């Protein structure tokens, strides 16, 4: 490796990136993906619009309504209307759920008779529907135990405890996974463009006809993207910590090291694609296909790797995103750091990825017309 040559190439790549405005994409794309997915994916339901038809208007029914009103999950409107009208409101998407308290609610309860509360939930989106349903149940059971202390103790016991994400905030579960997705996609796309652009334009002849070695050429293409995207590691961390308010319990240094390694993996994938394709459009489409889909599937955003079975489990282990995300969730939510042998192993695995991918890229790169 001759430093002078590398510097010349890097300077050239940087000024081209700058002048072609591709630099905007380098910094806009990761942030955009982060904001779009970070705000876009919501598993929990808050502010569900709920209409309560209180036909009883008693002390107990008021208490029950109050429970709903105090929940952050519901926006309550209490009305008196007939059932058909309420159902129409759901159809018109003006209401997400309806709770109907029967006229004899208090009387029957005090007499120790069973009473029925009508609950209608809009389940057009099944997962949202079932989430709302369980919230409603939770609130009602909770209210029931408060209302009737005479009820046999222990008959309703809900003992929920969530670990690592005690607040059960979606951001905490999604945002670290998003960093794993974004840092896989964005550097790969830019890197994929770099070599294939020269092929398409014809300037690749400058490499063919010069004494430049293959390793030098790859290094010259890798370093500029690596430097530019290294900054994204910090930008994304800032978004996570201050915009999405995700806790950070691990070591910053592990986050940094793992992320730099991971960017190298991503760039190596891009370079490999760049080496085997001939046109920019094919390179971009291929990169998006091999990064976004596995990046999303195996990032742990949608489902945890441990719950995967069969082929998908093996596939998850083939793509680097799983290893990085394990480290990410650790530094953000758990904080075990290097004391965990898994983290140590996964760092090594990421480094192995870099070595293998770059060796393949150098091997497959041809210094001749094909």
């Amino acid at each position, binding site marked *: 490796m*001759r430093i*002078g*040559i590398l*510097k*010349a*190439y890097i*300077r*050239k790549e940087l*000024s*081209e990136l700058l*002048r*072609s405005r591709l630099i905007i994409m380098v910094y806009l794309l990761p942030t955009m993906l982060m904001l779009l997915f970070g705000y876009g994916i919501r598993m929990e339901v808050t502010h569900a619009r709920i209409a309560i038809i209180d036909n009883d208007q008693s002390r107990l029914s008021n208490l029950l309504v109050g429970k709903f009103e105090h929940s952050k999950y519901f926006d309550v409107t209490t009305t008196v209307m007939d059932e058909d009208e309420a159902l129409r409101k759901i159809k018109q998407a003006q209401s997400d759920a309806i709770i109907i308290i029967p006229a004899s609610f208090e009387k029957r309860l005090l007499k120790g008779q069973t009473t029925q509360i009508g609950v209608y939930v809009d389940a057009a989106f099944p997962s949202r529907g079932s989430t709302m349903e369980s919230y409603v149940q939770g609130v009602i059971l909770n209210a029931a135990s408060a209302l009737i202390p005479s009820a046999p103790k222990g008959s309703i016991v809900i003992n929920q405890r969530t670990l690592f994400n005690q607040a059960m905030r979606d951001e905490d579960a999604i945002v670290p996974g998003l960093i794993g997705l974004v840092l896989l996609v964005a550097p790969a796309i830019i890197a994929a463009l770099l070599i294939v652009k020269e092929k398409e*334009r*014809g*300037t690749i*002849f*400058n490499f*063919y*006809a*010069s*004494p*430049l*070695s293959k390793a030098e050429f790859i290094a010259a293409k890798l370093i500029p993207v690596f430097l530019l995207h290294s900054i994204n590691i910090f930008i994304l961390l800032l978004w996570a910590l201050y915009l999405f308010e995700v806790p950070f319990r691990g070591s910053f240094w592990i986050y940094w090291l793992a992320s730099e390694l991971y960017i190298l993996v991503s760039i190596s994938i891009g370079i490999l694609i760049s080496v085997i394709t001939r046109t920019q459009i094919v390179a971009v489409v291929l990169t998006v296909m091999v990064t976004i889909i596995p990046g999303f599937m195996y990032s742990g955003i949608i489902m945890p790797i441990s719950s995967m079975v069969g082929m998908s489990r093996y596939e998850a282990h083939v793509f680097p995103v799983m290893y990085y995300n394990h480290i990410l969730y650790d530094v953000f939510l758990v904080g075990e750091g290097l004391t965990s042998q898994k983290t140590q192993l996964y760092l090594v695995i990421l480094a192995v990825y870099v070595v293998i991918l770059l060796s393949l890229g150098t091997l497959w790169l041809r*210094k*001749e*017309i094909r």
Partner: protein
Amino acid sequence: MGMLKIDQVSVTHNKRRAIKDASFSANEGEIIGFIGADGAGKSSLMHAIAGVIRFEGKISFQNTIYHSPSEAQILKSKIGLMPQGIGLVLYDLLTVGEHLDFFANIRDIRQDDRFNEYKNRLLRMAGLDKFIDRRAGNLSGGMMQKLSLICTLLHRPKLLILDEPTTGVDPLSRIELWKILDQIRCEEGTIALVSTAYMQEAAQMDRVLLFDEGEIIAQGCAKELIKSVQDMTYVRKPFTTPHSMSTLDTTYSLEPLEAEHAEPTLEALFFVNALQKNRILPSVEITPRDGDTSFSSVVMEAQGLTKTFGDFVANDRVDIRLCRGEILGLLGSNGAGKTTFIKMLLGLLPIDDGELNLLGKRIETAKDRQELKSSIGYVSQHFALYNDMTVRENLHYFASMHQIPMDIAIKRIARYSEELGFDGYMDAIPTELPLGINQRFSLAAALLHEPVILFLDEPTSGVDAIARAQFWQLLVALKEKWKIAILITTHYMSEAEFCDRIVLMRDGCKVADDTIPNLYTAHPNAKTFEEIFLEYYR
């Protein structure tokens, strides 16, 4: 013992034998010209010698023998390659100065005083010293080629390989390119291999290799080669025998003819070779067109046409008149404003000032412009064909674009394909075809709607001599039978002589507009049209 020795080199590219068993050698300081049709194997052999493509056989340079690109790696610091294509190796977004730094750096040249002096001299010779900060993307074609050349010369290569450096470059820039090349290669004792489409350039070189269908079929100095075909070259005879071929001014025949001999050029080699291999092209026959030909004698007239881009005046008050049955040649150096002018005539660029009349009617509204487009046939520099469709599908597509009824379109396509001589290629994909065939089929596409004007933007650039000669015969026949007006731009000054009238542009202005004989009278010292052209630029 030659310094460069090519021994039985063959190149197979994309499963096609591009060049077979080529052998030649060259000594220090020699310059060797590669001539031959498009696809004859010139570029492939150049790539093999430069060590950028896999080949069979053996090449030795300065006592180093190589059989593959990887073995050639150690020689790359001594070799300079400039591949085919205007500005191909340049980065549009980098400035002239940045290019020189970049090329010096990737070759690890020590940038001492001696180098800087050399670099500045190259810049001055190329006339680029005033444009150090201009981006390559904003240079004219001629300037791009000069920049590519000096970038290739920066490391003082001992073997210089230039693939058609002058194709598509105007005569003035061409002369400057040759000046730089000759000066540097003589100082450095460089072996230069240069392919060219201009026979006058080839004639100036020490030796010429003639390529045909992947083989070197003749080599020697230009004089010897020309002499060998002198007996078969005659002044044009209007009739043809089975073993003869004619251009607009010369007839070539293997059998003796009852005619005066003409002075051959290197081009004659192609014709004689084609005759010997019995590749005789059918003579051009054009039948009268379907529509009438009795339109007015002035087909198009433009007055004071002006176009400005910001502060830059691309066209300054240009007048032009296109007459019925006339071939008008539009000449000028790269960047003189020819393309802008044609785009205004085509209605592709709005006119800033001046007026444009088509068949006596002024073009003003968008509807007028639509009408303008339907009366013009246009063949662009890079034949606008769809490379995913066959020739037949392309033509059907163009026909339906012009809303020609299918039955008429099919008849016309069949007739044109026969008359323009590409009926054997109707089901081929354009990219598989030689440039000459694509050129004729683009012409057919432009004529499908029977326009009254035909615009041709450098249609013959990169096309070989025989195809070019045929193309011109076609144009002349079209002019005579169809009475249409033809406007053509070209960088081949020898072709300009076939035009009825010449308009010469410089810096966006018209500097000459006259017939060929009148121009020769006005410039009594000029022996060729190229010299007349250059007088307008001095």
